[in-house]
């Protein structure tokens, strides 16, 4: 413990990485919000609401992709249920957004509309405190993490690995989706939460609020990358990749993989929850469809496309696939899933290391 923590961390990351991060920070925290807020819509440099919302959304996806990569690319555990943690984070914050509607809903009641519709007279106990933003943030940070911890503890303790683990996570998110579909669960059934009006009393659709949510998403993404960078360059990260490559050797040299897996698994779920909480106010809706197995598989595809085992790969993958998706689903809506499937097969066959792997190969060829 001689060298201070910060110095060690600064040294562990190449200069180009810090510069890229600085440029990204300037763009997302200053330039884009300023161009959105200060320029009139007629100006050619005005950043439209569409662009701000879309990029805010994609940055939330990028956080999920990095979280997925920490567990899949570095620890070798493929989760096909990460959409659950994303959705749980979204629901936790959505509860607060529902309460912020106040009496402006269709039924002018203090209760959320769907509860009036179900003829409920008061809030269920688990909605207690949901009118407080701080409580909502606390729920976002703890509930999905707790779910992940409990699930992970039993799965990893029983040494469930590989495809078996993937299938169980898939079942987990599917079961949760069915549970949230029920009206009696108290989260709006198949409609979920929508029609949000305000955050902390401010209009949720105002340009200022949009720019704020956008900048917060960017900040969360950068912090995710920094935390990820720290984790993978620490001894913890080296043990993690060792578990991925030769788990029994790791055990025989005295590490208990359970705690390592459990930590990265829970941390990864927490990141997804934060992304979900930032995502919901930007898109204005959360429903159980977010927990569908297909959504979780899509997360894995982002990571595969971008390149597993690198931190920048998942960000690129999430960005590319989602940009393409927003174009494709408008231009040829019926064919999107076919395209996604083909993309996954293609990447697996020809680009096992994703876009970042391709980049590395091209660079190696040029220097050779």
């Amino acid at each position: 413990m001689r060298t201070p923590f910060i110095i060690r961390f600064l040294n562990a990351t190449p200069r180009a990485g810090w510069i890229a991060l600085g440029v990204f920070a300037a763009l997302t925290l200053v330039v884009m919000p300023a161009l959105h807020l200060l320029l009139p819509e007629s100006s050619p440099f005005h950043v439209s609401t569409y662009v701000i919302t879309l990029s805010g959304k994609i940055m939330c996806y990028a956080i999920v992709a990095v979280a997925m990569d920490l567990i899949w690319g570095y620890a070798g555990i493929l989760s096909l249920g990460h959409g659950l943690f994303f959705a749980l984070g979204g629901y936790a914050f959505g509860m607060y957004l529902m309460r912020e509607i106040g009496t402006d809903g269709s039924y002018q009641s203090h209760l959320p509309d769907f509860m009036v519709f179900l003829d409920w007279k008061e809030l269920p106990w688990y909605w207690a405190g949901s009118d407080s933003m701080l409580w909502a943030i606390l729920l976002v940070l703890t509930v999905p993490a707790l779910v992940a911890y409990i699930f992970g503890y039993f799965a990893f303790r029983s040494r469930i690995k590989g495809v078996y683990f993937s299938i169980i996570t898939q079942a987990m998110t599917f079961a949760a989706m069915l549970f949230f579909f029920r009206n009696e669960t108290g989260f709006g059934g198949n409609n979920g939460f929508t029609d949000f009006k305000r955050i902390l009393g401010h209009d949720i659709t105002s340009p200022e609020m949009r720019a704020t949510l956008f900048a917060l998403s960017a900040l969360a993404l950068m912090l995710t990358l920094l935390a990820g960078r720290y984790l993978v360059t620490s001894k913890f990260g080296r043990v993690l990749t060792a578990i991925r490559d030769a788990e029994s050797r790791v055990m025989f040299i005295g590490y208990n993989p359970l705690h390592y897996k459990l930590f990265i698994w829970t941390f990864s779920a927490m990141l997804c929850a934060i992304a979900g909480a930032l995502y919901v106010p930007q898109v204005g809706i959360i429903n159980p469809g977010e927990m569908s197995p297909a959504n979780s598989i899509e997360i894995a595809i982002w990571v595969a496309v971008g390149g597993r085992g690198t931190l920048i790969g998942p960000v690129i993958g999430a960005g590319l696939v989602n940009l393409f998706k927003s174009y494709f689903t408008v231009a040829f809506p019926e064919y999107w899933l076919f395209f996604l499937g083909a993309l996954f097969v293609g990447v697996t066959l020809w680009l096992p290391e994703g876009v970042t792997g391709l980049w590395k190969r091209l660079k190696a060829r040029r220097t050779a």
Partner: protein
Amino acid sequence: MNATVENPNWEVSVPAIGHVLQPGVDTSHKVILYLEDISVSFDGFKALNNLTLAIDAGELRCIIGPNGAGKTTMMDVITGKTRPDSGTCFFGQTIDLTRMTEPQIAHAGIGRKFQKPTIFENHTVFENLELAMKTDKRAWTSLFAWLSSEGRDRISDTLKLIRLDHQAERQAGLLSHGQKQWLEIGMLLMQEPQLLLLDEPVAGMTDDETERTGELFKSLAGKHSLVVVEHDMAFIEQLGGKVTVLHEGSVLAEGDLATVQADERVVEVYLGR
């Protein structure tokens, strides 16, 4: 400890009466590993059949036997990978290995080298040794762990010993087979175990490498206890310790190599008459 202060003539403060339970391995009765009546069966096949074996502290023991004699299963039982159906397995006088997990057994002081070299192929040679080094291996500690200069020195000493000091930054997967074997032995040494279990450590090594490995093992004996499973008789002869012959899951013969080789039952088992 107070006694030391009161009476400076006392060099060490040893409890005068009785036997106090010490942390770590208790080898006060000379034995470091004691297997008694161990049986393991897989789907009716008896891999180990009432195996009884004792290894003394500081001993270098070779174990031979035809394929399927139970050598690897025995190592699995000692290291916690396989639970015996019956029997006891003690490390020293006090540590019951049948109740412990693999990482706990590793911490207690037993290191294992696998038959097929298992190293971390995507890590550098240096990192392989760093991960193996004896230290606090809990997840939380690893998050903030930083390699001390003492640790760095230990790694470079081991690198010299296994003759990989010029390849420290090389990816371990790129080493030759013999070098991988040495790296795994190096990782074992970094763990500072009292007992080393070595499953075919010289398989795939050149004659020169084999001989150097033999020298290394002989220098380790005394301070450490070694159990070597091998097929290479010349290597066993070089090591020169006591030899145990396993057959069908139990001990067939025990003694020095010449005695064992002269034993008719051993000849029969090997030649299959």
